[in-house]
């Protein structure tokens, strides 16, 4: 915990304290409802949660999701926030037992807040708790409460996690939340009816626990398939990155080049407040921006003067890159970024001769990062420039060759010594 940034440390302490407070208060409430079989409910739902939370799915840009949401939700609707909060605490202790202590306390606290608040909203909005009601039809009239508490659950949970991820990695909080919520929101919405159905089935005396447990089958399949999807996606990105490196290895000086460009682009994008939702596409495009060069390479290496056809071929290379990245299909949007990486604000770029605002910000970022890295590395025909000379070059091209705002941000980063170090070991882009 010592080496974490101070705001994150404070956050990791505040959340468990809030969670603990809420748990105490919910306990007082529980004591006033003797008709609830607290122990039975906790044991059953704890078992179910632990089964459902096995091998949770790691989401692409931080956070995890598991089908345990449906179980939590059922527990809230059947037993109310008190029991659900206890299930959350105990399951965090059991499932995370091998993690550092602050992870356990944070997650326990975060989960108590999530289920506790969702449960309170459910009750406040007029929802019936199944364990408290003798009426089989009670849930028919709990529709609005069910929706409101589902929203509460998703919002509290996604914000709590996004803040932690954002603080840890120094990303924008709101953007991180939007990416996380984009992944989580629709899936939770799809899982919510499972939770409600579980609560309904529980009402039938013949079914009870068996009926609830039966829901695990479809839930497990959803998790299994979704995990398969996320794994394949990761494998896919690794493969593309690895093979792209292999392709570049042909030209000794671009070796690891794209990887450095990617790191520069990420630093620049963060400085410029580039939307977190498009970050993955930007990084993927930066990683692969040179992949279209294969046709122009013989031309570039020619010793004699380049002909018009040679130039035409060179100007087509971003379009080649766009086609290849589009064929890889995995990052929608990355292909168009690659196409625009050689455009200039004054309209003299290629292949489309776009000017000013027509050029995607992501492409402008990659253009600057690419130019800087090219100038500061050795070439067959010249030695590398010192960094300050390259920076001066960038400043000279500001507004004509390069996007002015991007160059300003880059110069600032350089002045403050915040550019990524260049001789780091290359590793695959994180998903």
């Amino acid at each position, binding site marked *: 915990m010592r080496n974490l940034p101070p705001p994150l440390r404070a956050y990791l302490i505040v959340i468990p304290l809030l969670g603990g407070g809420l748990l105490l208060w919910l306990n007082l409430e529980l004591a006033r409802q003797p008709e609830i079989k607290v122990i039975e409910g906790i044991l059953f739902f704890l078992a179910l949660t632990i089964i459902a939370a096995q091998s949770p799915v790691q989401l692409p840009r931080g956070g995890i999701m598991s089908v345990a949401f449906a179980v939590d939700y059922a527990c809230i609707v059947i037993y109310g926030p008190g029991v659900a909060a206890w299930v959350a605490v105990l399951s965090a202790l059991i499932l995370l037992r091998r993690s550092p202590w602050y992870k356990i306390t944070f997650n326990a606290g975060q989960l108590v807040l999530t289920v506790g608040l969702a449960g309170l909203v459910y009750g406040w909005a007029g929802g019936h708790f199944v364990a408290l009601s003798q009426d*089989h039809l009670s849930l*028919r009239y709990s529709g609005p409460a069910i929706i409101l508490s589902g929203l509460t659950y998703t919002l509290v949970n996604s914000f709590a996690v996004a803040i932690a991820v954002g603080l840890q990695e120094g990303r924008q909080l709101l953007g991180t939340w939007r990416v996380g919520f984009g992944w989580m929101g629709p899936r939770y919405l*799809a899982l919510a009816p499972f939770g409600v159905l579980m609560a309904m089935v529980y009402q039938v005396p013949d079914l009870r626990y*068996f009926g609830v447990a039966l829901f695990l089958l479809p839930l497990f*399949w*959803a998790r299994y398939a979704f995990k398969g*999807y996320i794994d394949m996606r990761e494998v896919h990105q690794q493969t593309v990155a690895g093979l792209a490196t292999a*392709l570049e290895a042909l030209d000794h000086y671009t070796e690891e080049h794209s990887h450095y460009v990617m790191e520069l682009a990420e630093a620049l994008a963060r400085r410029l407040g580039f939307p977190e939702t498009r970050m993955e596409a930007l990084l993927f495009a930066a990683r692969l921006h040179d992949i279209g060069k294969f046709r122009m390479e013989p031309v570039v290496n020619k010793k004699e003067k380049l002909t018009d056809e040679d130039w035409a071929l060179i100007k087509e290379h971003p379009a080649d890159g766009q086609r290849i990245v589009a064929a*890889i*299909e995995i990052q929608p949007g990355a292909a168009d970024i690659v196409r625009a990486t050689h455009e200039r604000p004054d309209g003299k770029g290629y292949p489309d001769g776009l000017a000013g605002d027509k050029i995607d910000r992501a492409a402008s970022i990659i253009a600057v990062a690419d130019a800087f890295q090219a100038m500061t590395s050795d070439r067959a025909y010249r030695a590398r420039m010192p960094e300050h000379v390259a920076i001066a070059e960038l400043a000279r091209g500001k507004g004509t060759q390069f996007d002015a705002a991007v160059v300003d941000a880059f110069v600032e980063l350089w002045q403050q010594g915040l550019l990524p170090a260049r001789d780091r070991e290359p590793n695959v882009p994180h998903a």
Partner: protein
Amino acid sequence: MSRTLRIYVWLVTAAGLVAVAVTARFGNLEGIIRPSGGVLTDVAFFLVIGCLLDMMIVPMTSGGAVSAGFAVFYACMLILGPYVAAFIAVIATLWTDVVVRRGVPIHKTLFNVGHAALSLLVAGAVYYLLLGGRVGHVSVSGIADLARVAGSAAVLFGSEISVVTTAVALERKAPLRSVWLGNAKLVIPLDAALAGVGLLVALLYQYRQPLFGGYGWIFVAAVIILPTSLLFYSSRLFMDMYRVYDKTLRTLSALMETKVHGIDAEAVGHGERVARFAAAAAQEIGLAADEVQTIQYAGYLHDVGKVAVPSRDAGQNLTQEQIDKLRRHADIGSDILRPIRFLSRVATLVRYHDARFDQGPYSSAPQHEPIPFGSRLLAVAERYDNLTVSASMSSSPEEAMRRLVEEAGSRLDPRAVQAFVRMLAREAVVDAVRCEEALHAI
């Protein structure tokens, strides 16, 4: 369509149609036609959600597909009996194949109708006759109840998978075992999930009155669509990723070939062809689906090491450096692939794809290390492609096959050549009689 496949399809279809006819004659269909006490509502309910869910079709990686409609047919079998369930399955399948998907060939539609009806009647026989189930009430309170429910689900989904897998294997001329193994990892959990959903539909429907009151069946219908959509959606994502991954490897392999050999070279497409042939041969001898997939990926990527060979101008002789690099391209390729987590087994196959069976001078394999069979298959496929495609040789498939047979035991592994020749016969690339002769010569 091969003769076996045609006979098989017509047999299943006929059995299914006979089953439907018997149902119509002796089943309790009069209950549907002249409803008394809400049977019409029951049938309408299962028919509507059956048609809706049957439209959700999840394609499997090794061919064939699973339809979510079976969850509903199963529920219907439990509540209204096998006759009505078969009847609903027939209508829903016709609805999906004829109205929704259109363009499904008539024999496929009939086949789908036939095997659905057949599976349901068999499962129904097990549930009602063998295990003593009772029409109109599903009970899950005792061990015997659970065994009845689980047993009939296993029979229903088991017979459904077997019938479809057999058809896929016959259609693709692939061994039954490899199609089956290729799909099992996905089909078994998906079917378990569908059986679970089916049982839930049955139970919710049965208890709709106490649970939801008057218009209970509307609630049940609404409430079941969403979870099933979730199943469907996550399955689709998963299956699509496999397709996308394969496409990416093909794209990158073509890109590498272009990079190494230039734009118009005949070499472009070599990786894809080697992958296709080697994978088909691997399937031919019944290797597990994972292994087949590894061989296929290794086929796409086997020449990746050639990107390290310095480019040369056309017409010039190779420099010493280029010769060395070419000679070591398998090792270099393997080194490129090894760090990619998912491809480490592919890397091993790539390392030895160039090795001679008799451990000749170019072999990089140490004497004591056995060369993986996948690499030997790749070697045969690569040799075949070089013989048939390259401009300097361009043999006919039959000549190339004879050449492979001559080289079996020296340059190539005889077992791998055998598998390859069988594959050529099965795919009808070379006349089957010639292949038979060739096999004798090995």
